[in-house]
């Protein structure tokens, strides 16, 4: 990241306002033909002294299937940091259209358990813009530190794709080799996701992206139906891995076919134990039992 001082925001930005603003920016750019910038904005945004709302935490834990403990689930911290990341993507000098960006993958390192009462400093910036065979991709990095001692507690890298956007100076990445054909294993679980799955997760995460909310709002953005939030799916998989995981762990997910709601999602979780019997890692993969297409896969690994 750049060495510039972060832009300190007074409070967590409102995600709904950011989405409205993103829509307005998109319309302005389309109407007036504003040339978008061609480089990522330098510098980061930061909000200090962020505290989790305990009622919101409980609702999140119940929805995701996490144990309602006093520790913040790694996916909850992602949701806590998300408005700061969104404010970076919402800057006037941000070169890619925010609405319609596709979440390709997400990597999180949780370095220790975080108690809900702990004040947190959340910083985020955009990085590593590069070509993709279908457009332009970039990483949005978020770091969460303890406001008390500055210790790094959690780090997330979300990779997004702006589909169909090709910026000058960024080469189209070569066509990836055709992925090996996915053959669904025997499922260890099946999720029944109702049509309200997106609305329920929006209510606990604050991510009211219209593509997740309803048939009509998703259609307005060019999708046939609403889709589940990627981080909802990944967070449920993390919860399903369970509390065997160490206090410090790495949690990765690669998103493939979106989950159109309502849906049944089949899941396989495989766990690897060390020779002494302690948990080392769990790998998960999820697919549609109807079409056999893979929705996402990932792993949780002890650090």
């Amino acid at each position, binding site marked *: 990241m750049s060495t510039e001082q972060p832009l300190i925001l007074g409070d967590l930005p409102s995600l709904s306002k950011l989405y409205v603003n993103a829509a307005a920016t998109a319309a302005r750019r389309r109407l007036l033909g504003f040339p978008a910038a061609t480089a990522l904005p330098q510098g980061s945004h930061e909000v200090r002294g962020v505290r989790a709302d*305990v*009622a919101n935490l*409980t*609702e999140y*834990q*119940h929805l995701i299937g996490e*144990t*309602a*403990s*006093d520790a913040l689930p790694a996916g909850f911290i992602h949701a806590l940091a998300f408005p700061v990341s969104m404010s970076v993507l919402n800057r006037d000098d941000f070169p890619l259209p925010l609405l319609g960006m596709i979440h390709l993958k997400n990597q999180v390192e949780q370095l220790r358990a975080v108690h*809900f*009462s702990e004040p947190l400093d959340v910083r985020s910036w955009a990085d590593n813009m590069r070509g993709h065979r279908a457009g332009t991709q970039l990483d949005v990095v978020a770091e969460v530190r303890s406001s008390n001692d500055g210790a790094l507690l959690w780090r997330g890298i979300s990779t997004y794709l702006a589909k169909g956007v090709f910026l000058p100076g960024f080469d189209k990445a070569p066509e990836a080799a055709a992925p090996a054909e996915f053959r669904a294993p025997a499922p260890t679980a099946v999720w029944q996701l109702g049509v309200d799955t997106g609305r329920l997760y929006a209510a606990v995460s604050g991510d009211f992206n219209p593509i997740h909310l309803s048939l009509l709002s998703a259609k307005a953005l060019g999708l046939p139906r609403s889709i589940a939030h990627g981080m909802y799916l990944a967070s449920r998989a993390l919860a399903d891995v*369970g*509390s*065997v995981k160490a206090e410090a762990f790495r949690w990765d997910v690669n998103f493939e076919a979106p989950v159109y709601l309502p849906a049944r999602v089949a899941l396989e979780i495989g766990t690897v134990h060390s020779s002494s*019997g*302690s*948990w080392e890692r769990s790998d998960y993969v999820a697919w549609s039992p109807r079409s056999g297409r893979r929705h996402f896969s990932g792993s949780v690994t002890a650090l």
Partner: protein
Amino acid sequence: MPAAAHSASAPHESPATQGTLRRAVVVGGNRIPFARTGGAYTKSSNQDMLTAALDGLIARFGLQEERIGEVAAGAVLKHSRDFNLTREAVLGSALSPETPAYDLQQACATGLETVLGLANKIKLGQIDSAIAGGVDSASDAPIAVSEGLREVLLDLHRAKSLPDRLKVLSRLRPKDLAPDAPNTGEPRTGLSMGEHQALTTAQWKISREAQDEIAFNSHHNLAAAYERGFFDDLVTPYRGLSRDSNLRPDTSMEKLATLKPVFGKGLGAEATMTAGNSTPLTDGASTVLLGSEEWADARGLPKLAVVVDGEAAAVDFVHGKDGLLMAPAFAVPRLLARNGLSFEDIDFFEIHEAFAGTVLSTLAAWEDEEFGRTRLGLDGSLGKIDRAKLNVNGSSLAAGHPFAATGGRIVASLAKMLHENGPVNGRPARGLISICAAGGQGVVAILEAYSAPEGR
């Protein structure tokens, strides 16, 4: 050596078949602070709270990924979806997922009964370790559909044709749409527990002042115990609470005297039971770690106390022969007799304060000559207990009473008291637990400070 291999090679050494009993020790306990209903745990489910108490216990004694012999717990107010509450809590905890668990329900005696049942399994050699517990939420209480709606829904499911379904639906009346909330009324009498106790309190002529004094002592004893750090290794904070939220360290006899009676107002006698000398509805969970001596030793864990014996009793309260909460008055003398003990041999009395009137009515019955002769079959009264030994670190009036969680709270606290006390007249310190329960039941138990057996 694995247990299976052990019993295969030397079947006669298995304690379960040989007739010798092992000792079941209390290693320690953990609970979350108890919260008044509608407080810090309003949104927490029974499973949330039981898991929180369990995870605190696991962290305290290093039981991560450990396979425990068996976990038993329960809740009194239970959602139908919580049919496997304890097993689900185990699966959500850091224990090995290969730990079996079962639910138990004996109203307010649930927690103590899980301790006794699991201790017996340890004594028999069936298991080496166990976690007993209980949880209750009055905030997140189940609400059911009315009986009318329930019957219609079930019949609708069975109806085969559209006309049949319409016929079933036509039975639905507006009143059927009103939900059923749980209440504390006894099914056979329609009286609430408080109204039942008010009858007993009046029968034993317990004064308002005596009840307020029990409440006053409970708050001051519990506050003092928190102040000196007694609960530091018995309680894990949860949802921002680090002490029981019902605790009023500054309460006084004057303040208690200002409260208006809430139960027994329709009786001829003066109403004496107030919100101050009755326990409030509370949310919370507790756990107790039990083990054989060998199991505790192998892990370097403490052995605070031994679960000596327990006894359950029930009374015929429906037609008023005895008060609803008077069963311990019968269980205790039977338990003492079986163990050849009298009140003089007990150093700590833990009598659950459902209501101050319950404690005082029970003590009055034990002190009563006629009750001793006619009801207990003794020569005279059972005896009088030294009040200085009663609920010395506070009880339910101050801590609150999340029904099934009370037994675990008392067992863990008493085990620690016995351990800290040291021997009495050359014998291990001894404690008596008495818990009354709905349905006219009561469960009581004796714990003894752990002392190494002769020759060890």
